[in-house]
């Protein structure tokens, strides 16, 4: 079962939440943000080249122009490969663990997996982010040796930064699975 809804992120940009219910104990949430727009690319390129042309007329050195071209190309490639995250996915499997995937615009994907033994809870927490207070979803980790202490806090959806309505949906689904998992683990 799959459905898609559109939400907003904290800056007002459009987001798409794609939910997949593979079964009653395995769910996946994919948040895709807007792709890199042609407008912003052309704006940045034109600014960089205008500045380079201004420096060229000042210094009469043609290396400035060629270095501006290189900087633009390398900067765009680096941005697409290291910075611009197109989609973030959260896959939660009861009794196995939680997996977070970030796919960059150049196709690179980075994955993090957390075992279910280490997961204490998934909560929606508030944070002060520059001049705003935002909500973010985070996973509380516990040390299996000391199950009543929180050892680490792992925030998810860090680049797409959805708003509270989207986070509540993901939170409710995760809590259903975690409640089932706690019930099955409490009654051996």
């Amino acid at each position, binding site marked *: 079962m799959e459905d898609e809804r559109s939400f907003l992120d904290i800056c007002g940009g459009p987001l798409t939440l794609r939910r997949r219910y593979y079964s009653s104990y395995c769910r996946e949430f994919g948040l895709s943000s807007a792709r890199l727009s042609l407008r912003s690319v052309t704006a940045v390129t034109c600014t960089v080249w205008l500045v380079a042309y201004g420096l060229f007329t000042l210094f009469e050195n043609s290396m400035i122009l060629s270095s501006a071209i290189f900087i633009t190309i390398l900067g765009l490639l680096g941005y697409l490969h290291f910075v611009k995250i197109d989609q973030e996915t959260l896959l939660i499997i009861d009794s196995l663990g939680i997996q977070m995937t970030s796919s960059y615009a150049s196709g690179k994907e980075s994955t993090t997996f957390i075992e279910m033994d280490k997961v204490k*809870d998934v*909560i*929606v*927490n508030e944070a002060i982010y520059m001049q705003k207070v935002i909500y973010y979803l985070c996973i*509380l980790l516990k040390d299996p040796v000391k199950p009543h202490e929180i050892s680490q806090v792992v925030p998810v959806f860090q680049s797409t930064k959805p708003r509270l309505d989207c986070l*509540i949906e993901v*939170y*409710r689904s995760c*809590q259903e699975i975690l409640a089932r998992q706690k019930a099955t683990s409490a009654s051996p």
Partner: protein
Amino acid sequence: MVENSLTPLPERAIYGFVLFLSSQFGFRLFLVWAFVPESWLNSLGLTFWPQKYWAVALPVYLLIAVLMGYTTMLKNQEQKNHQEDAIPALRDIPISEVNKMFFLEAKELYTQNCV
């Protein structure tokens, strides 16, 4: 301080050393001011000091204040142990329960409270 552990960190060493230096400097300045005669200090050009009376008065004031503090605190402590139905100490509600209350159970309650 977030942790109350006794680990020797470099920052703590620096704090300790700064405290040591400043306390030594303050103490020696106090001794100089208390013992060196006014005429010598004036000849050096340092004229704007408080009266030497305070070199004796301030320590006496502090000692009496500490003793009075001890007596009043101990008297208050005796009285405080007798209150059993007082307001309990502050506690933090765990974030999981706060989340469950807000987002899982009563969605209508939350929106009503907002309006």
